[in-house]
């Protein structure tokens, strides 16, 4: 496959970098080439955070994603800023609890799910990012559920292993929404 370029963006604290890390670890578990690059400027200290993830069968060139195939947006400024940059044929996943999707592009697909609301309803505090990942694997052929689970197991540190079932549950909710 060609390189799949993914951009994740939202507020600092929403787990944007962590969700990106899960995708990166999925790539590792799936024996793909991959790169993960966070924004590390002042914006990560309380403002907007974003991260670039590239998944490929070939070595990755520039790890900086400017025109994503997949955009995962978790707040309005990120959606507004990046939706215009998505490649034609690309897919946009966003939290419809926080984002009003105003977009007149006919050449991309929008998948809005109320991930923040779903996380709150299911007692999964901070799980909005993972719910969106569930939706991503349902609507793309990026990774299988099996690989996603392996990725999560790998990225969650041993001291927080008790949170793994919650992450699995969040993936399931995202896949079914």
């Amino acid at each position, binding site marked *: 496959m060609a390189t799949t370029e993914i951009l994740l963006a939202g507020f600092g604290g929403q787990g944007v970098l962590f969700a990106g*890390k899960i995708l*990166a*670890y999925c790539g*590792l578990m799936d024996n793909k*080439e*991959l*790169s*993960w*690059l*966070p924004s*590390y*400027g002042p914006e990560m200290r309380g403002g907007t955070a974003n991260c670039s993830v590239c998944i490929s069968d070939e070595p*990755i*060139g*520039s*790890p*900086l994603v*400017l025109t994503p195939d997949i955009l995962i947006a978790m707040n309005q400024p990120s959606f507004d800023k990046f939706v215009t940059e998505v490649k034609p044929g690309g897919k946009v996943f966003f939290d419809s609890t926080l984002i009003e999707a105003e977009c007149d592009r006919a050449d991309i697909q929008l998948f809005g799910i109320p991930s923040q609301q779903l996380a709150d309803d299911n007692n999964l505090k901070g799980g909005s990012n993972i719910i969106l990942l569930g939706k991503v694997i349902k609507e793309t052929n990026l990774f299988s559920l099996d690989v996603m689970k392996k990725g999560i197991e790998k990225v969650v540190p041993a001291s927080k292993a008790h949170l793994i079932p919650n992450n699995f549950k969040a993936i399931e909710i995202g896949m079914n929404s």
Partner: protein
Amino acid sequence: MERNLMKGNEALAEAAIRAGCKCFFGYPITPQTELAAYMAKRMHKSGGVFLQAESEIAAINMVLGAASTGVRAMTSSSSPGVSLKSEGVSYIAGSDLPAVIINVQRGGPGLGGIQPSQADYWQATKALGHGDFQLLVYAPASVQEMVDFVVKAFDRADKYRMPAMILADGLLGQMMEPVSFPEINPNAYDKSGWATNGHKNQREHHIVNSLYLKPDELEKSIVDRYKKYDIIKETETDAELYLTEDCDILLCAFGATARVVKSAVNSARELGIKAGLFRPKTLWPFPVKEINEAAKSAKTLLSVEMSMGQMVDDIKLAINCSRPVEFYGRTGGVIPTPVEVLEQIKRIGGAL
């Protein structure tokens, strides 16, 4: 071999520990801080010393002291911090001591910014401190090379008794990529002839020094060092040549920029433009033989850098100005895009 996922900064630190680094002295600065943080966590568990000094100047002088005893010592920083270390680096070179210095570059001059840059090329290859001296300078372009080059830097620093630098940048330091750690069996170099370690009065004492008040003695020490540099220029150059065999346009780029350029070269080839890439892995010594081999069929060369153009002069010298050498760069922390570089290739391609 097991693939791990690590940030470049962490991989540099892990590689140093595996290469037998026993002393790390540093001072935090974005975008290299994860390196020091990793050392703080891991160094004492592997029998080494991690120390956060009161300043960059203190840290480099601690490296000088540790290296004098013959142990493998390292410091790391980012551009403004490396400037502060320059005096110490000159002393280390003047004292013929092995040490590894890491620069995860950010935008300058002054405090500059914290985004990736390559604007310390001149500093690293020409004048990291006062006096006649050189450092070995390695330019990794991936997290894996960050590991491989740290191992090599420690080895060559010991072999030639001189400082070696890893010239990385914020992009490489911050990104995660799969990385494998090879089995490392560091070569054991005999340091018993010069190291100032304890000997219970069993031998004459050794002196580590860079002060020579008699000009002829100082001159001799420098000339001897330059004989060593001549050997290094002959034997230690390293470069990647990519699609250069038939190229009309030879792009030249190192480090993170080379990744961007490689993508652009691939796109150019799809358009039928014969572009190739020369990527120096050693910046000093500059790979003169290699670039001449790469440029055999090239009509024009194009250097792409995250600076205002600092490698261009080395390229012109290396090919003896036999072909035009053009430049394209972004600076101040801006990363050039493959699309921008492709535009430059097309512009030159059209003119050929």
